């Protein structure tokens, strides 16, 4: 979608910087970092798993994971998004969180209480849905689960539009931006991969 497609919920200016500067820099810097190394030419997820190094992060991890996280984030949103999910995804949310509202509150709380920079996720593991929050560049891939949905809570993700009001940003994301279609198809893929 174009950079202004998510307005008024996420401004064109935010996308210009967030995608055009921050995300681009992660990609460009990663390319420079792996040039001439054994990681050059490897798939992004391979680089992420390799450089996570059980939490003792190797230098390319931040750029690699952030490049992956941001692509996943853009695809987690759509113009005219938000509302409630349906079908199997809704059924599983109701099964694992008691209700959609309980999931909504738990996801909100995770995003609001991730201190400093990081991400909140809906993830799938062992046939269960769960809400996870991670610091800086860490994502559920390195924690052994399938990411289904994410919100970026680094300040650069919301500061131009919301300044310090992270809770307002999270609500706007949930109510107006989430692409439940993307989440549902990721759930399909996750179930297929684990069977």
């Amino acid at each position, binding site marked *: 979608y174009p950079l202004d497609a998510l307005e008024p919920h996420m401004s064109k200016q935010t996308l210009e910087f967030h995608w055009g500067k921050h995300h681009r820099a992660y990609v460009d810097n990663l390319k420079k970092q792996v040039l001439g190394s054994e990681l050059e030419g490897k798939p992004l997820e391979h680089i992420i798993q390799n450089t996570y190094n059980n939490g003792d992060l190797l230098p390319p991890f931040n750029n690699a994971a952030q490049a992956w996280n941001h692509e996943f984030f853009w695809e987690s949103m759509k113009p005219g998004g938000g509302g409630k999910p349906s079908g199997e995804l809704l059924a599983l949310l109701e099964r694992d969180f008691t209700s959609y509202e309980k999931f909504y509150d738990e996801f909100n709380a995770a995003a609001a209480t991730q201190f*400093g920079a990081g991400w909140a996720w809906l993830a799938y593991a062992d046939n269960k849905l769960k809400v996870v929050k991670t610091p800086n560049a860490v994502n559920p891939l390195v924690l052994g689960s399938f990411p289904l949905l994410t919100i970026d809570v680094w300040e650069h993700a919301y*500061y*131009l539009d919301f*300044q*310090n009001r992270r809770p307002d940003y999270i609500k706007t994301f949930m109510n107006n931006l989430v692409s439940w279609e993307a989440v549902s198809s990721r759930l399909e893929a996750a179930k297929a991969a684990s069977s």
Partner: protein
Amino acid sequence: MAIRSVASRRTLSSLKESSSKLLGLRGIQTFTLPDLPYDYSALEPAISGEIMQIHHQKHHQTYVTNYNNALEQLDQAVNKGDASTVVKLHSAIKFNGGGHVNHSIFWKNLAPVNQGGGEPPKGALGGAIDTHFGSLEGLVKKMSAEGAALQGSGWVWLGLDKELKKLVVDTTANQDPLVTKGGSLVPLVGIDVWEHAYYLQYKNVRPDYLKNVWKVINWKYASEVYESECK
């Protein structure tokens, strides 16, 4: 008569204030947002007035409010002997208490140009900087590089190691105070590199913020701290 009632209203409200402080004294000391010793716009163009106002009135105020809440919960848990709640509260205390401690130092680390902001340190601190880093430029280059390289949120510090009697440059993550990197470390200058400290003005270009912030660093305050710790 109107004047009398205004006076009595003010007396009543100050009574209320001191009685809630008394209640606080029974258990814990709570905190308030310190005033800035300069106007929000006084650090321009290095740091915009918009950033200063939001940084002080919103971010720092939130740390103070949440720190006080955590302290009250801690007080209750301690009095009840609820050990697991006491332990659970530690991260909220570290985040919010650290945020209050760090920002209180930060406002003193900054000064308008017409109040000495940017003026190089003289005296003992100036000499120590030359000894340990070759020159002020050497120190600035090192701190700016470490601040730019910091992933996520945190601070870059010039500190005094009281035990080893030397200056150090170090970084801390999130709102960890410098003392978490070493019990004998005293913060002299801290630079906030959380995105909220510069984003509205410098956007993603943290290195530009780090280049410009030195123009408003209050070396007089850092020297005072250094000299009093060296006694």
